[in-house]
């Protein structure tokens, strides 16, 4: 027995003596899906630039105050007030030595002597936090309603009618009315800044989930018919587990794309509300608020309007480019081309 076996083995090896039998070894280590996505994302020049700009703005806004030790809320009094108010940006000294500016306040001060750069940083923290929080809320609602509508046939009709109804609401007027109505009670509950923060995050989140819900519903409807869902059903997976383990991971990519675009919408909506005077209180800077404050004295100090405006636009632009790149990177049909 063993002899016969051995002889057969030797026969095989002698036949292949020039080419020893080996398993094919892959030349590169296996790549996960996310490595592929990242590679494709880096390939998209606009998206990568957007990521860098967005990260720079976030770092500057959140870590900047650690390096730049000016208090955004400090209002000078007496002689200091006269010395410090209405400073122009320091770079204007380069071509005009007579201008009222100091390198200690690189972007100047406002009409009561608060440092513009420090206010921009603090305003950015608020604007970006509002944007992220509102995006998370709208994403949560959109995903919840989208999966419910797509997965449970009975809920599909009512939930989609609800979505259509929300899409037919005139949002900006309603946002303004809601802010006006609930500003006072929430101010008493959470304090002047906290109340408005909760209110704005809530109303922006509640009025922007519809697109996500529609996209998610469509994808869930398609996924529900796939074999792996049937297989999971046949081993007795319950609905809750099914959604969390099998459905949600597969609709992650449209959700991520709407997440990036959601940040942009939320930041713009918050700034628009602040700009119309329905946002945060006047002494609490956000980018929209700073822009609104600057408009009245725009003829004399155009830079005060331009800095926050450019920051809003840059943030939104970079986020939009990121969304664009992410959409390409997450689409397996485009990836690898």
């Amino acid at each position: 027995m063993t002899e016969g076996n051995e002889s057969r083995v030797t026969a095989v090896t002698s036949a292949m003596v020039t080419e020893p039998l080996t398993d094919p070894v892959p030349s590169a280590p296996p790549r996960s899906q996310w490595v592929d996505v990242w590679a494709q994302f880096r390939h998209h020049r606009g998206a990568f630039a957007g990521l860098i700009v967005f990260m720079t703005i976030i770092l500057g806004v959140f870590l900047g105050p650690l390096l730049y030790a000016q208090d955004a809320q400090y209002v000078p009094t007496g002689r200091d007030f006269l010395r410090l108010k209405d400073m122009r940006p320091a770079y204007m000294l380069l071509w005009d030595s007579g201008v009222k500016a100091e390198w200690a306040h690189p972007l100047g001060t406002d009409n009561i002597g608060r440092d513009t750069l420090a206010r921009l940083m603090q305003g950015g923290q608020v604007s970006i936090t509002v944007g992220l929080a509102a995006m998370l809320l709208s994403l949560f609602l959109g995903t919840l309603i989208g999966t419910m509508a797509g997965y449970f046939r009975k809920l599909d009709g009512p939930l989609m009618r609800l979505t259509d109804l929300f899409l037919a609401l005139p949002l900006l007027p309603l946002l303004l009315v809601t802010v006006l109505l609930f500003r006072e009670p929430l101010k008493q509950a959470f304090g002047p800044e906290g109340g408005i923060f909760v209110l704005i995050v809530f109303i922006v989140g509640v009025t922007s989930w519809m697109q996500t819900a529609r996209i998610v519903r469509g994808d869930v409807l398609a996924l529900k018919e796939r074999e792996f869902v049937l297989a999971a059903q046949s081993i007795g997976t319950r609905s809750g587990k099914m959604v969390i383990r099998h459905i949600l991971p597969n609709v992650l990519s449209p959700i991520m794309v709407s997440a990036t675009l959601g940040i942009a919408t939320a930041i713009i909506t918050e700034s628009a509300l602040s700009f119309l005077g329905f946002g945060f209180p006047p002494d609490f800077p956000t980018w929209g608020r700073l822009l609104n404050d600057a408009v009245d004295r725009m003829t004399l100090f155009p830079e005060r309007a331009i800095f926050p405006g450019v920051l809003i636009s840059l943030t939104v632009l970079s986020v939009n480019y990121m969304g664009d790149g992410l959409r390409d990177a997450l689409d397996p049909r485009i990836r690898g081309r």
Partner: protein
Amino acid sequence: MLTYTIRRLVLAIPTLMFISLVIFLLLELAPGDPMAQVPLTVPPEVKERMREALGLGEPLHVRFVKWLYQFFVIEPAVFIDTMFGTDWAEGQQRVISWQTRSPVMEIVVQRLPQTLTVVGLAYLVGVLIALPIGIYSAYKQYSVFDQAGTFISMVGFSVPPFFSGVLVIVIFSVQLGWLPSIYDTTLTVNSWETFWQQVRQMVMPVMVLALQTTAQISRFMRASMLDNLNQDYVRTARAKGLSEATVVLIHVLRNSMIPVITVIALGVPAIFGGAIITEQVFKVNGIGQLLITAIEANDLPMVHTLTFIFAVLIVTFNLIADVLYGVLDPRIRYD
């Protein structure tokens, strides 16, 4: 097609009623009191009578139904009266503004022309600029023009109107002094000089609104053209020896316009919403500005009516878009 349209129209009515109810209930929570400005020397029973005169004494559902009746029956009757000189609405109670104590619709009619000229013209300009850009960037995909067009429309998406408005004011009014920064609505156009003045004051608001329209619609136009340019019928048309202009501008363009036209229809209510901000920036006293002042002054009937008008616009244009899609594309069958 007709049954579909009728079905949609019938469906639109409960939607609008529901939206109106939502707005009404929201406003019901409003903390303001229309009697707050009345002097304290006025005795309480007189105040109560004044309150009733504003229609506030009655329970919620009665007031809501009354508002519906006023908006859907009396206001159209007034409209017909002024058009044809009849007297259907004689002596009927109209929707009254708390601010001015005059009918809400009268003020809206006064403000509407400003909004319509600025917003309507902006939309038209935006669409007219967007279509050629979209067509050309699809035809020369990945060319320098296309890349630049993509970038500019990204910027158009990202720069909010309250910043682009301020920016053009800084550049063209403050630095260059070419254009007035405030829209003068008292200007009556009766000579070439005033016409020129009107044109100059409309340039900036129209530009700001048109930038956004252009950004969106040129992207749609490009995507739609790209979908069609690779189709078999295009190759057939070229093989027949048709000129390139005929192929692109007649065969491809006509097919690509179908989704674009619905997008254009869908964008109309959105641009009214965006105009609220633009009107605020350029101090145009249109309906957007009217809404803001009404909200600030707690003028609830005015806010309710204006918000509802916006809702009607959205629902109507959604309907128009859906019906147009079916009319233009014979492949779509709704029934």
